[in-house]
């Protein structure tokens, strides 16, 4: 039965263009695209790390995130069974301002973007080969340096295998051992079943992007190939379904935008931004693209830079041009109306 459903859906898919979205539920429109995404890792050629760390890039990413305090500080349940009674305070104007400032500082920690780094290379270093020790035991031994103050990534973890070779533990073993001796709260030793293909597919269909990304951040290191696979698939799904609002004002939007810019997939996002008339963000996005791909725009003015990008580098040229033209016309008309009002009031 499920096979039949699968094939019928595939048929339906092939008759529609990939841009048109099918409305299935009244609640949300979900594109009938299955996990046909390919995982995209940050190879390291070039290394995204140095580009990501740049201050200009970070500020651009922050602008694009569109910080909405109401969304950042929305009510969340932290797994406690009982709600806590809120604290009420009488405050003067100054005290209230101070409280807002402190909250804004907290925003920085809430919106810390998960780092973008190149994928880690598999470890293969053999320290010594001792065939004399083979058959000593039926299982391998793992030696860990558990001294305090050593970083998890630098910790010495060695494996003496059954055939006698002493080698450095591979990455999976390293993760497992580090979690055993120095556990990170709520991180599982074995990879959760949620990240397996079928389950991930189901979650993506339901639109639970934040849940996947939060848990992936918690479970893996940023240079883990599995992390990059999960995260890239999620980003591609978000991009294709235009569910940008789900990630806006969260910490994941920054790395999401960086991913899109790195892989030259910013057209959907740019279209969304222009249509919703957030020109500052459009400028920021185009600038980010230039930073990453070392593209120099001829004009200094931002609006013209957007034009240049659309002409030279965009893949959805027609749609973008149309949208941008519409925005320019609307902006022009608005300007004229405002001028008229000003003149009527005798201000200009």
């Amino acid at each position, binding site marked *: 039965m499920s096979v039949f459903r699968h094939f019928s859906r595939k048929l339906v898919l092939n008759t529609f263009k990939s841009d048109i979205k099918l409305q299935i539920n009244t609640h949300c429109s979900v594109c009938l695209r299955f996990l046909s995404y390919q995982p995209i890792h940050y190879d390291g050629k070039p290394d995204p790390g140095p580009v990501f760390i740049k201050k200009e890039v970070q500020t651009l990413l922050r602008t694009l995130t569109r910080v909405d*305090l109401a969304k*950042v*500080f*929305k*009510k*969340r*349940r*932290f797994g406690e069974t*009982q*709600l*806590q*009674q*809120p*604290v*009420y*305070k*009488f*405050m*003067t*104007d*100054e005290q*209230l301002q101070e*409280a*807002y400032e402190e*909250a804004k500082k*907290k925003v920085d920690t*809430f919106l810390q973007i998960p780092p973008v780094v190149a994928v880690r290379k598999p470890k293969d270093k053999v320290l010594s080969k001792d065939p004399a020790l083979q058959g000593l035991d039926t299982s391998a031994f793992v030696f860990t340096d558990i001294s305090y103050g050593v970083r998890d990534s630098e910790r010495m973890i060695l494996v003496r295998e059954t055939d006698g070779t002493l080698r450095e533990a591979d990455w999976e073993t390293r993760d497992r051992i580090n979690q055993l001796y120095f556990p990170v709260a709520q991180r599982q030793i*074995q990879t959760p*079943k949620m990240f397996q293909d079928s389950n991930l597919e189901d979650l993506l269909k339901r639109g639970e992007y934040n849940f996947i990304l939060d848990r992936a951040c918690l479970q893996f290191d940023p240079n883990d190939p599995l992390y990059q696979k999960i995260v890239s698939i999620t980003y591609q799904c978000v991009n294709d379904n235009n569910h940008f609002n789900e990630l806006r004002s969260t910490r994941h939007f920054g790395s999401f935008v960086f991913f899109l810019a790195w892989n030259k997939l910013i057209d959907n996002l740019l279209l969304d931004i222009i249509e919703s008339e957030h020109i500052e963000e459009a400028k920021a996005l185009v600038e980010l693209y230039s930073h990453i791909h070392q593209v120099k725009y001829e004009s200094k003015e931002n609006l013209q830079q957007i034009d240049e990008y659309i002409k030279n580098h965009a893949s959805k040229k027609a749609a973008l041009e149309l949208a941008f033209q519409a925005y320019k016309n609307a902006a022009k008309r608005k300007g004229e109306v405002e001028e008229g009002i000003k003149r009527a009031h005798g201000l200009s």
Partner: protein
Amino acid sequence: MASQLLNVTRTLSKLSLNTKCRLGNTLIKLEQELAPQPLFSNPSRNTNFFNKLPAHDLWKGITSVSNAGKKRGRGKTVSKKNIKDLNRGQIIGVGKANIVWPGLTAPIIRGKEIVEQQQLPEDPERQKKLDALRDQMGTHRYAKLSPIERGWSGAKMPGRSIGPPDPIGEEIFTGFDSKVIELKTVFNMKGNFGRKRRVSATVVTGNQNGVAGFANGKGQEPKTALRKAKNRSGQKLMHIKIFRNHTVYHNFFTQFGATKIFVQQKPEGYGLVCHRAIKTICEVVGIKDLHAKVEGSTSVTHVMKAFFLGLIRQKSHEEIAESKGLHLVEFCKENGYFPTVLASPAKCRSPDEIKNDEILDFTQYCYDGRVVLKKKKHPPFYTKHKSYEIYLKKQEKLRNKEEVKMNLIAQYGEIRSFLTEKYPECRPYKEPKKEQAEEDSNT
């Protein structure tokens, strides 16, 4: 004594002329034949308790208690509900002596013949039927209440719902529900009658949305009293402010007479942790989460009145902010302690305008300077015993068992051990299903 008698009779018998008459021998014979035994007697009477009085008086004695007896609390099981109606199952004209009464139980003319009054043989089944019927009668069975319908205790009325107040003309009390707070029998001394018995009922009514009222009603029977109270409470409704549809606007303290109540606002899901009267009132008002501590007298009417006083004296956040001249800000853990302004005054005061001894703490301000007594929670007595230490040591192996079970099922789909791979029988025992067990028993 007996032996002496015997000697006397022997000499006398020797003296008699008639030698055939030998009295002494019979006595001696009797003595030899019969062993000494006690004497029995079977008493018999011709009158008994049931014959002494007519049936009417006997029945009256069983089914009623004198007024003096009632004063002394006699005859608790004697009541109109318990008395079996002997007339049930009986028809006029049909009795123990099975007589045909033309005009009453039979037609006067049957065909062409006139029916005569005659006695038929007795019907043995009639009495049995009557007995069976009477066996089933008698014990007054109270209607079994479901837990939802139950009040504070048992089948008693306080805490129970009695529906909305009766409509007045075209006014129908939609959405209203009344609950009984108190139902008591009260007496009043009258000049001619003496003690006059009445029932007093206190009822609270509300639409679960901020409109409520309470009243008292008296009547001869509980039913009338409740009706009066319910309708009167529908006439005396008050508007009560409810914060976010579930709780009070702020903590407050109220008192009425010797009853003092400290009321605390609580978040969603907390429930009504308070005196049962306050709980009932909250249910009709529409408050779902509250904590209240009653101190002093716990007289139910006083508790109710004190609580209502507190509810209507509540101030909205805007009023508080205006009176204080400061912003009222809420800090909630669930949204990261982001300052949410609940109310702002028209003009906010500056720090210099605030006096030194002014109450700036919101909780203290709400309680008007009072502080709620927090009793120290002591650990239970057994924690100090050596046996508790031993128990904890034993529990150490078991206390994480449930979590481990959950994690195993999440990871492997079943509860297993590290040996299960090698030895598949190393799994928890599952009882064979009932059908299989039946099959096994059949085969």
